[in-house]
Structure formats: structure tokens, C-alpha cells
């Protein structure tokens, strides 16, 4: 398809524009995407379809796999929820308040995007290990963070935070401050104004941020495995299980688990998207 994209014989696309380079740029783009993105994903699909439903179910219904899926999705949802709350708070502070060093705080929010996951992983593991700076304090209260599901949640909160902040921040900045003044002239308290006037228009953005953080959390590997402890049935995430299967040269097993993960992700994100559409209809008549 890349070769014909720019050819004049293709009458369905008669006039893409008058500038030169359409055929070359689109052709190259499609070829590149086909080789780098589509081909491998197609290979995954072909491999999976070769297993058949029974072959798939035999692996996916394995209790260890089921436990890891529950853990991965459960903790991802929890971390995304924590990020939804604190991300909103951070976005609020960055948009609404002025304080010294605000530019630096704003920049540092993107740290999880810029810091390699393995680096974040060993740093978090060290920090929350029983002898680490925070782990030591937690131990006093009888809390074990590293090498438990709590540690996984911490890593996923770290990874997901910028998603919520960066989706909410522009919407909040665009929010007309006059609506708050309008609410005040109508006698509404600050709390009521926040609850009924400011938060509703932000909800679609918060849900988007939540979905992004959740999707990233489910697939996350590098920052989690160091702090997770990786105990089967307790703190073993699904991506790790894929790696374990691969290391055992069990390609079919790895494919099955990856497929189960993608499938559940897809269904959950679909549900979140529907909630999103509903909230837009409810709150987003903009």
C-alpha cells in the first residue's frame, strides 16, 4: 500500500494537497509503521490464534496466572485512584498558587517520564526496604512495604502521577475563574463552590488521567520488579510472569498471558471510556 499511496492512478484520493512529498512521506510512514509496529503485533495475534481456545484457557486459568492478573489489575486500579486524588491536588497547587520554586516543582512532576524505570525501581526498593530510609520508619509501626503488594502500589503511584497532573492541569488552567466569582456573588461558600462549580468540569480530565495511569500501571515492569519481591501468588505481577515464561522458553505460555492481560486491559479501558463519555455528557457541555 505504501507504493501506491502517492501514485496518480489512485482516484479515491484525488487531491491530498498541492505541496510536494505526499507520496514519499506517507509511503515511508506506512512502511515504517508496518515493519516496526504492525508486523510484531500481527505476529502476536497469529501466534495466539495458533494456540486455540483450550490451549489458551489451560494456561490463562492457571491459579498462579489468575493471582498475578488479580494483583496487577487490582494494584493498578488502586494506584490510579491514589493518583487521581493527589494528581488533582498537585495540579491545583501548580495552577492556582504562586510560590517560590514553582517552576522547579512543575518540572519535577515529569520525573517519572524521564527517569528510566529500572533506576526508579532500585531507588524505590532501597528507600522502602526494611533498612531503607522510609522502610525503617514503617517497620517501627509494624508495616512492611518493600517486597509486598504495598511496594508495588508505591511504584505504580510513582509511575502514574504525571499522567493525572498533566491531563488535569491544562483543563484547570482553562477554567474560567469568573465562574467562581459568580458562585461567590450568589452566596455560595468556598467548599460548595469547589464541589459544585469547579470539580464537575474537571471530572472528565481526571478520568482520562486515571485511565492513562491505570493502563501504564498494568504493563509496568522495570520500576515494579525490584520492590515487588516477586513471590508467586503474593507479589508477582503479570508482566513478570510473561518474562518468566520467556526465560523458560515457553513462548506459548508467554503469549497466552500477554493476551489475557491485553484482553482484560481492553475491557477495563472500554468501561472507563464509557464512564468518560457519560461524565462528559453529564459534566462536559462545553
Amino acid at each position, binding site marked *: 500500500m505504501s507504493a501506491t499511496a502517492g501514485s496518480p492512478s489512485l482516484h479515491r484520493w484525488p487531491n491530498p494537497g498541492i505541496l510536494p512529498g505526499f507520496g514519499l512521506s506517507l509511503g515511508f510512514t506506512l512502511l515504517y509503521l508496518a515493519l516496526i509496529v504492525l508486523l510484531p503485533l500481527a505476529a502476536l495475534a497469529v501466534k495466539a490464534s495458533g494456540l486455540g481456545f483450550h490451549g489458551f484457557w489451560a494456561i490463562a486459568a492457571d491459579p498462579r496466572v489468575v493471582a498475578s492478573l488479580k494483583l496487577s489489575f487490582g494494584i493498578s486500579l488502586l494506584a490510579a485512584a491514589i493518583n487521581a486524588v493527589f494528581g488533582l491536588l498537585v495540579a491545583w497547587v501548580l495552577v492556582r498558587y504562586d510560590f517560590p520554586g514553582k517552576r522547579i516543582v512543575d518540572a519535577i512532576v515529569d520525573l517519572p517520564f524521564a527517569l528510566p524505570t529500572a533506576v526508579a525501581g532500585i531507588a524505590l526498593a532501597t528507600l522502602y526496604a526494611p533498612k531503607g530510609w522510609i522502610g525503617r520508619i514503617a517497620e517501627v509501626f509494624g508495616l512492611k512495604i518493600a517486597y509486598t503488594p504495598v511496594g508495588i502500589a508505591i511504584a505504580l503511584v510513582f509511575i502514574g502521577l504525571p499522567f493525572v497532573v498533566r491531563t488535569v492541569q491544562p483543563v484547570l488552567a482553562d477554567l474560567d475563574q469568573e*465562574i467562581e466569582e459568580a458562585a461567590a*456573588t450568589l452566596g*455560595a461558600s468556598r467548599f*460548595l463552590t469547589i464541589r*459544585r*462549580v469547579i470539580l464537575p*468540569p474537571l471530572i472528565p480530565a481526571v478520568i482520562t488521567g486515571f485511565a492513562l495511569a491505570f493502563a501504564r500501571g498494568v504493563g509496568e515492569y522495570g520500576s515494579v520488579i525490584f520492590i515487588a519481591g516477586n513471590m508467586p501468588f503474593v507479589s508477582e505481577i503479570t508482566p513478570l510472569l510473561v518474562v518468566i515464561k520467556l526465560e523458560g522458553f515457553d513462548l506459548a505460555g508467554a503469549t497466552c498471558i500477554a493476551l489475557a492481560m491485553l484482553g482484560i486491559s481492553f475491557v477495563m479501558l472500554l468501561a472507563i471510556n464509557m464512564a468518560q463519555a457519560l461524565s462528559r455528557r453529564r459534566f462536559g*457541555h462545553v
Partner: protein
Amino acid sequence: MDIRVRQLAKEFNTFRALHGVDVDIRSGELLALLGPSGSGKTTLLRVIAGLEEPTGGQVFFDDIDATSIPVRERGVGFVFQNYALFKHMTVARNIGFGLEARPKGERPSRAAIAARVAELLDFVQLSGLGGRYPAQLSGGQRQRVALARALAVEPKVLLLDEPFGALDAKVRKELRKWLRLIHDKTGLTTVFVTHDQDEALELADRIVVLNKGLVEQIGSADDIYDRPASPFVYDFIGDAVGLEVEVADGRATIGTQSIPLGLHVHDRGKGRLYVRPHHWQLSEADAAHLVGTVISQRRSGAERRAEVEIAAHMSFEISLEPGQEIATGCRLGLAPKRWRLFTASGRVIDPGVSRVPEDYAI
């Protein structure tokens, strides 16, 4: 309710938006705050509403000092320039918001709120649109929702910031009449901000002209138009030429020419002589004191305008009857029928008013 503003000052960092403003707003009147951008008119309105804290001075509602009453408790109705409607609420919920926001004890019942909302929708001629969202309304309709929302809480005063600024010309004219109607029906003390002189002159009982944070003049449309209190008001409202003149012996001299002002003018020194385009008496050039050459002319609405040059690089517009044919290049004698002289020493001399009333003092 009447409102008295005393020595009001407001500074934003280094910018002085208001310095020492005094205004008395009479109960039940429709008052316009008029001025160019940056004149402080919106700031004055927001200080009255309680949306800005003044850096000095006081605001009285009747005899109560309202300066420190928080905006939530001030009981003002405020209509924002861009309406500031709650986009995620229906029209009905927008209008009912102020009532629903009241603390438990004072909150009307659900049915009472619904009834009040229906009544207001009817009042602003939007019956049946209560279930719509603001995005589904036209600009004029949104404006009326904003007004109904402000009226729902039964305010003691209605404040409107550039109420027609965001509308196109035709809707603006319709809503202008309609606002007058609303004001007359409610009898509320109403203050609106505008930069459009036609709007202020046509709509308001009285007009406050502001410039650089100071009041230039307060008065009726007649006062403002016929007896401008300062060169600024002359320049800002209506057309007029302000000639730089040298005054001596009852004459105003411009270059080599001079205009007799009358023997009662004993002032000497520099001054600005203001004349509106239709206040020139035209005559033959020979017998006149001030002579000019017509350099161009054009039709402007109901009248004809001619550009007259009285000296090199010194020209102004005069108005002619539409049927009055004057050839370009023709020389004309000019004498002001009405004029106003502002002397450098601060005196205002106007042959039309025998005495300068105190109100007009700058």
C-alpha cells in the same frame, strides 16, 4: 438602596486602578460607568460587588459600611461580561444555584426553588428552555440566563460588567431596550460598566465618566454631552475639535487668526477652545474673523462633513446640511455658535451657561 462610594482607591502591585473616587448612586437609578479601557470602571464595579478589596476608602450600602462585608454576604447581583454560566448545569440549575447554595435553615424548599426558577425564566422570556445547557443557547439567551441567575437571590443592587460587550450589534440594541425594561420593572438600583458612549447616553439615568482611575464627570446624558466638564470628556464623548489657543483681551488667537469670545472673558494665557462640528456658523470669508479652506468633504449618515484647514497642518471637521453644496477649495468664514474654553489656569468658560455649577468642577 443607595450606594455611596467614598475616596475609593485600588492598586494592583504598582498599577493604580482607582485613586480617590467619590460617587453617590441614588436608590433605584440606572447608572453607567463609562470610560476607556484602563480607566478603572470595571475595578470600581468589582469593588462595589466585593470581588476586589479596595486599598483605601469605603463603600456604603444605605448607611451601612459594606467595605468589609465579604462578597458572599453582600447580596449583590452580578452579571459577568462573559456571563460565567456554569456549563455543566442546565439553565434551570444555573438560575436556582444561588437559592440552593443557601445554608440549610434559609434554603427554600425544592418546590419553592422550582417555582422561583420558572417565574424567572418567564420574566427573561426563556420559558421552556430550563432543561437546556448554556452551550445550547445563543449569546443573547445566555445573557438573559446570567441576569435571571443574578436576580434569583433577590439582590439589593444589580451590577453588570459590559453587559452587551460580547454580543453582535443587532442583538446588543435589542437587549439595551430590554435591560431598561427590566430595570423599570424591578426598580433595582442598577450599575453597569461600558466603554460604548452611545450605550451609556441612551440607557442610563446618569453617567459616571472615568479616566485613569479618577471621576471626570457625573451627570445626565444632557450634562455630559452639552456641558462636558473637562477636555477629556469632550475628547471622549461626541465629536469636537479642541483648538490650542492663546487667550487675551477677550479673544482667542490661533496662529495669525483670532476668534472674539466676548468682553466678559478677562482671562489671559493658554487654553483649549472646544467646538462641536455642528456648532460652527458659516459665512463669507471676507467679513469673518476665522477663515478656513475646505480641503475635502464626505457624506456621513444624516449630515455632510467637511474638513476645513485654518492653517498649515491645522484642520478640523465641520458639519453641513446634506443639501449644502460647498466646493472643495472654497474659502469659508467660521464663527463658533457655542463653545467651551478650558484655560490653562483651570477655569471653564462657556457662554451657554452663565455660571459654572459646582458639579462640573473637575
